């Protein structure tokens, strides 16, 4: 709805100011949702809460998609992410019973947290700095089809996917099949293997043998 509305506003020169204002409003709401959600994901200690905050972020992203007139993607974003992926997350959390609170403060390696924060900041700064660089975009006409031409978004997207991007599209199909098979194989319980073996514990935590033994000294 919003999309059609905004599209109509764009077409209508008289409603430019309104359209402008509404676009800003949508952007602001979406941005707020995104940032709140992201902060929630990384800061909340309960995984269930994190998952719910992820939903908020995903919805915010969908809003921004609408604002950028990517109607189809906005729909897909909500259906696939909010509808499937997050549900999957919640399902696993519940299924495994790991909805315990995590002690975020405790950290085995000291420098991990400050360095990680610093790195996030530096990445941000660098990306912003890079975005100031404009000579990478050639400004050449689009190759795979224009965005602003006649027809609605879904039609143009379908056109592109089933013509120019047919091969990658087919490959994603193959990828999905592989993912399905992989999931089945991974979750299949091998016959005779104990549920939680102490041996498996040792193996995974790297305590199977003292690594000092394998030293070669001259």
């Amino acid at each position: 709805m919003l999309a059609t509305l905004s599209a109509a506003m764009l077409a209508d020169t008289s409603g430019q100011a309104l359209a402008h204002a509404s676009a800003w409003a949508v952007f602001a709401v979406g941005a707020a949702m995104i940032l709140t959600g992201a902060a929630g994901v990384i800061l909340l200690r309960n995984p269930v809460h994190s998952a719910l905050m992820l939903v908020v972020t995903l919805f915010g992203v969908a809003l921004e998609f609408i604002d950028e007139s990517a109607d189809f993607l906005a729909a897909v974003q909500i259906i696939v992410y909010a509808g499937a992926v997050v549900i999957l997350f919640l399902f696993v959390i519940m299924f495994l019973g790991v909805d315990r609170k995590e002690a975020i403060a405790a950290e085995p390696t000291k420098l991990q947290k400050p360095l990680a924060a610093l790195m996030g900041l530096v990445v941000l700064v660098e990306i912003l700095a890079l975005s100031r660089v404009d000579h990478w975009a050639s400004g050449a006409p689009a190759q795979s089809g224009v965005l602003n031409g006649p027809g609605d978004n879904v039609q143009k997207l379908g056109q592109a996917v089933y013509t120019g991007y047919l091969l990658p599209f087919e490959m994603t199909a193959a990828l999905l099949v592989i993912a399905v098979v992989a999931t089945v194989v991974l979750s299949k319980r091998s016959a005779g293997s104990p549920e939680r073996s102490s041996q498996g514990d040792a193996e995974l935590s790297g305590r199977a043998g003292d690594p000092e033994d394998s030293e070669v000294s001259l």
Partner: protein
Amino acid sequence: MSVPSAWYLVLAAVLFGMGATGLLIRRNVLIMFMCIELMLNAVNLTFVTFARLLNDIGGQVDVLFVLVVAAAEVVVGLAIIVALFRRRAAATADDIHILKG
């Protein structure tokens, strides 16, 4: 006109940074996956923004592909987590460090 592209890009960059930081800070494997989703969404946002900026439908197509790959990744990743949990109650990523040198 609508909101300038730069705003979207900055937003995406912030989202990406938060996702990356979260990935490095959190120890719960599931939340680490969620952080990856955040980063992917940041990228998606960037794609869409550039699609608008350059008037190219290709950006949106790419987002479609990222969605598919992300879904597949989540499915397989969660399957791995399930398999791991089955062998032992590895609540966090730090409990698994068999590669310690």
